[in-house]
C-alpha cells in the first residue's frame, strides 16, 4: 500500500535555512544540508527546499546546496523558488534534485509546465499553488483564487481551474498552499485540499497550517491529500517526525515505518 508522505519544508536564503531547529545538539541549524540529514535520519519521506534568495545572481549558492544534499540524502527532494526557465530547472535537476517546483512563473507562462514536462518528464514537475479563499464570482467559481507575492497580489484566476489546467499541461504533482492557513498552525484548509484532490488524478501535497499531528491526520483523511508539508511544528522541535508518524499509524493512516 502506498504510504502517505510527510515532507518537511526548508526555506533557504543565501544558502542558509531561515528557521532553525531549537533542540538538536551538534547540528548547525542554519545549514540546510545538516538539517536535511537530520530529517532524513528521522524518517522524513521527502524534502522540499524553497529558495527565497532575493537576487537571482546568487543562485549558484543554492545549486551548491542541492549538490551537497544529493550526495548525502537518499530520498527524493524538490527545489522551488524563483525558477523561471527550462534552463533554471535543468540546473537544479542536474545538481541532483528529483523534482522542481514552479509557481509564479507557471502562472505567468503556463507553457513552462508543458515544456518542463516534455524536457524532463511530468514526474519531476511540481506545480506550487498559493491559494486564497474569496467570494464566489464569475472569475472564481470555486471560491478560491490564485495569488502571488505571498498573497499580496491576486491573479483573478480560479484555483480549481488552474489545478486541472496544470494537470492537463503535464504537471506531475501539486503542492497546494493555503495562504489563509499558512503560518497559523491551526490546521490545513481541508475544504480546499479535498476539492483540488478530488478534481485531479495527480498526487496533491497539502501545505499551510500544520500545527499538530491531528492536523496531518485530518488533511490526509478528510482532505484526501497524498502528502503533508510541515515546517514550524518540526523546525522548532514541538514534534518529531517519528511522533507524527506514530500518531498517524495509530489512526490507521499508512505511513513509512522503517527507513
Amino acid at each position, binding site marked *: *500500500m502506498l504510504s502517505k508522505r510527510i515532507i518537511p519544508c526548508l526555506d533557504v536564503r543565501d544558502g542558509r535555512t531561515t528557521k532553525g531547529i531549537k533542540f538538536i545538539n551538534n547540528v548547525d541549524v542554519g545549514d540546510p544540508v545538516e538539517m536535511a540529514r537530520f530529517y532524513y535520519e528521522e524518517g522524513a519521506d521527502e524534502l522540499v527546499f524553497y529558495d527565497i534568495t532575493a537576487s537571482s545572481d546568487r543562485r549558484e549558492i543554492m545549486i551548491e546546496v542541492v549538490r551537497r544534499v*544529493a550526495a548525502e540524502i*537518499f530520498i*527524493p527532494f524538490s527545489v522551488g523558488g524563483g525558477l523561471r526557465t527550462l534552463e533554471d530547472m535543468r540546473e537544479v535537476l542536474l545538481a541532483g534534485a528529483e523534482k522542481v517546483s514552479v509557481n509564479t512563473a507557471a502562472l505567468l507562462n503556463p507553457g513552462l509546465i508543458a515544456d518542463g514536462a516534455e524536457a524532463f518528464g*511530468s514526474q519531476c514537475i511540481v506545480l506550487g499553488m498559493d491559494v486564497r479563499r474569496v467570494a464566489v464570482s464569475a472569475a472564481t467559481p470555486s471560491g478560491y483564487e490564485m495569488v502571488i507575492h505571498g498573497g499580496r497580489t491576486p491573479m483573478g484566476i480560479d484555483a480549481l481551474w488552474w489545478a486541472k489546467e496544470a494537470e492537463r499541461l503535464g504537471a*506531475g504533482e501539486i503542492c497546494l498552499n493555503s495562504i489563509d492557513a499558512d503560518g497559523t498552525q491551526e490546521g490545513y484548509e481541508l475544504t480546499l485540499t479535498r476539492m483540488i484532490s478530488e478534481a485531479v488524478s495527480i498526487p496533491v501535497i497539502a501545505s499551510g497550517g500544520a500545527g499538530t499531528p491531528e492536523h496531518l491526520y485530518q488533511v490526509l483523511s478528510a482532505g484526501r491529500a497524498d502528502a503533508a508539508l510541515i515546517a514550524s511544528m518540526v523546525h522548532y522541535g514541538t514534534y518529531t517526525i517519528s511522533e507524527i508518524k*506514530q500518531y498517524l499509524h495509530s489512526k490507521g493512516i499508512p505511513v513509512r*515505518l*522503517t527507513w
Partner: protein
Amino acid sequence: MIAIIDYGAGNLLSVVNAFKALGCPTRVTHDRAELARSRAIVLPGVGAFGAGMAKLRSLDLIGPLGEEVLEKGKPYLGICLGLQFLVQESLEHGCHQGLGWLPGTVQPILPSDPRFRVPHMGWNDVQVVRPCPLFSGLGEAPVFYFVHSFQVKLAPEAADRVTANCWHGTEIVAAVQWGKIFGVQFHPEKSQWFGLKLLSNFIRLTGEGDAYAQETPDSGFGAARWFGGAECQI
C-alpha cells in the same frame, strides 16, 4: 568499475551518488569500450520509453548491451526505465520496440479504483515472491520509492522471472531477475536504507565496493520491528 549508462535521459547523479556512498567506483558512459571493461552495467532512468530507446539506438548501444549482458553474462541492473527496456515493446505514447530480452509489454497503470493516483508516486511496500540475491537481508516487506505511470506486464511464460510485486489498485511488477539480469521498477538510489542495501547486494555480485555497514534500517518504532514484516505490531 560499474558502468552507468548515460543515454541523455533523466538524472544519473542520484545513482552515481548512491554507488559512491557504498564505496563502489562507477563510470558514467556510453562508450562501448568502457562497457567492455566494466564488471557490471547499470541502466537507470526516468522519462519516456520511446525517446530512451531511440537514444540507445542512436548511440549504437543495443548490440554492445546484448553482447556484454546476454553473451558475456555481466551483471545488469535496470532501474525504472532500465527495467521497462527489457521487454519487447511499450505502448507509452505510441508503440516502441524494447530490448526484447523478456517477453512482455509496457502498459499504462490502470488502477481499479480512481483513489489510486497515476503517476504511482511515493513509498510502497514490496512483496518479495521469489528468493533473489538482490533482496537478501531486506526482510519480508521492504519499502521503496516509486515514480512511474507505466508498468511492465510479462507474458505468462516469463511470469517466473518476477521476484517482487507491489499493489497500487492493480498488481505491479516491482522486480524481475533471471541469471545475473536484474530489473527494478522502483528507485533504490532514493529508497534510503532498503535501497542502499539492495544496491550493495548488487555490488557484491560484481566483487566491487565495500560491504554496507548498516545491518538494519532505522525506525521510529523501536529496534527490530521490521524483521516481522507487515504483520508486526508496534
